């Protein structure tokens, strides 16, 4: 038995793939409203798993070396675009009410942002940005797609008005489309774990601004940085993340407790003049 298993692994190794699979998936470009933490609603778009609009973009998880055939269904009445960060161009257009399938392949550990590149950055700013997570890790995983919003601008941009990005001053800050305290109800976002457990946090910034995420209680290791590969291996408590940048962090808690994680641009821990209602959640380690 042992001998057989060894041969099997060796064969797979010789062929250069171990878990490579072919993954078929579909995302729908939907239009809807995002409800901010103060109850205000603003125009929003999202890549969802069905034709039903949800604030949180669908996440695609694949293994190293996997092939991904992603069908993008445009349910909107206007043309939308598609592209993936840090890849050789998968850029394409999806005409109104049409579907386009994009074949992709991802060899390396990473988080890639798939986004709408039409009328850039407007549609991406309006919500069309999700993450493709490429990892073979089998432990506990958490996912933060962080974003800033200037609520009124969503409505203006959707109405076809132009804005001056040099005047951008966001007033809402979300993780997976939600702010504190609602974000703590998202089991994909809120870190719950135990002492000594190895956990990975996959982070993408699909907003316009730079955010500086500070962890209370623990230092974490940078496993992957899309823009700064030389940062890999650093142990830190504060992690800046630029617009359209992605990170993978590893957390191994050494003690129990409930601790916050928040943007240390302290304007961004508020929303609609309520504190602490922005980019803020807590970790619970038991």
């Amino acid at each position: 038995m042992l001998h057989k298993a060894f041969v099997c692994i060796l064969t797979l190794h010789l062929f250069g793939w171990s878990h490579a699979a072919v993954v078929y998936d579909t995302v729908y470009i939907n239009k809807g409203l995002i409800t901010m933490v103060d109850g205000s609603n603003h125009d929003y778009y999202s890549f969802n798993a069905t034709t039903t609009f949800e604030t949180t973009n669908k996440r695609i998880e694949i293994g190293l070396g996997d092939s991904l055939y992603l069908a993008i269904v445009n349910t909107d009445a206007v043309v939308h675009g598609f592209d993936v960060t840090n890849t050789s161009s998968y850029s394409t257009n999806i005409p109104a009410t049409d579907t386009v399938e994009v074949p992709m392949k991802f060899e390396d550990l990473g988080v890639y942002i798939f986004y709408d590149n039409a009328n850039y950055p407007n549609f991406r700013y309006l919500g069309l940005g999700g993450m493709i997570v490429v990892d073979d890790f089998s432990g506990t995983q958490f996912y933060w797609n962080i974003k800033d919003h200037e609520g009124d601008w969503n409505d203006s941009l959707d109405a076809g008005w132009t804005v001056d990005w040099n005047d951008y001053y966001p007033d809402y800050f979300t993780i997976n489309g939600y702010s504190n305290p609602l974000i703590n109800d998202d089991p994909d976002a809120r870190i719950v774990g135990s002492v000594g457990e190895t956990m990975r946090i996959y982070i993408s910034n699909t907003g316009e601004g730079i955010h500086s995420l500070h962890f209370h209680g623990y230092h974490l290791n940078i496993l992957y940085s899309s823009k700064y590969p030389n940062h890999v291996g650093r142990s830190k408590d504060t992690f800046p993340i630029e617009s359209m940048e992605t990170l993978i962090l590893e957390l191994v808690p050494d003690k129990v407790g409930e601790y916050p994680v928040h943007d240390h641009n302290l304007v961004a821990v508020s929303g609609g003049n309520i504190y602490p209602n922005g980019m803020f959640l807590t970790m619970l380690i038991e």
Partner: protein
Amino acid sequence: MKNWFVVIVLFAGMQLHAQMDEEVLLIARNTGEKVVANGDTIRTMGFAFSLGENPDVPGPTLEFNEGDSVEIDLWNVSQGAPHTIHLHGLDVDQENDGVPHLSFDVPHMEHGYYKFKAPHAGTYLYHCHVVSSIHVQAGMYGLIIIHPPDGSKTTWDGGYPYDISMSLLMSEIDTIWHNDTILLHDHDPDVEVHEVELPVYDPQYYLVNGLSDGQIPEENMALNTSVGAVNYVRLINLGYKGNRVIFPAEFDAEIVASDGRPFPTVENSDTVYIYPGERYGVLGTMPAEGLNSITIEYFDLNTAELEDTQEVPIVTEGYVSTTELATNYELLVKPNPFENSFSIEADLKEKSEIEIVLLDLRGNIIDVIQKPKKMVGSVSIEYTNPTLASGVYLIQMRVNDEVRLNRKIIKN
């Protein structure tokens, strides 16, 4: 009865404090006053060691050795909202983390005790975490520096030895946020979310260690170093903007640590980007005497627009050890400090064209002491200037048009 109670509490307190290596009293106040660069005095909140002290922005720097048992006694004497101390980056347990509702907060006229063991040598922060957007901007923050267990001038145990260290803590002030209506906000400690007025953040003052613009030379803030000395510059951002810190190329800056941990590999870069809550440790050496500066840019996190630039002088004077003094030119200035006049004794081993000028710390020429002239041997020059304002100046000797020596001199 009451007296007995006080005695028992004091006694219990003494027992608790008995095993501490370091005890610090920090008083939280909301009556701070700060003079900003245009001369205006604004209201601040902050921390001070004693009741008689104005709580400055930033608050006092706390220094410990790795492994120390530390207790910070936070006494809130502020009439307003409760305050806390968050020990930023120290990874303390939940009880001592200073976040309201997850840890304790400290109401007016009460004490709170924060206990922790000083972790890895490095650069950390403390700040209030009650409505932190407001209380941090108000000034409730300061630096924590942790030295190696032996207290030596080493970046960390087994790390790089250095001769000179300096901390540059960057932040900003928007005076609108310092109005009473913001600082004295209503606060119900029983609820977890608070409706507060947060004006658009648009600072007028971009600070380094609490100072900006003309205040930097006025307060003689500078990296005062010598040729060959190893400098360890700690960079800290506790503002709501991004910083780009640019060292002179000849400083040969090496980024060796961040957030209280050594880097796995040193990063050679003259430019260091630093974002809110981050800290970096940078090593560098000046190869020649002279006047240089560290440039600090402040840019907006939403638009990436450059908002402001501050300059911190690097004054390189003399040599780190006399054995390295392999120069043909010597310069002696006395008395220093001086009242109205001083004398310069120069020893010139080669015949050269010598020029001596008087500079301020920003490198502006204030006066020419000796016009360019061919000289050799022992030279003595008297200089008198009764109208010169009090402060720190540099005497710069140029040999054949090249800057060769700087001597710092203080006018009383």
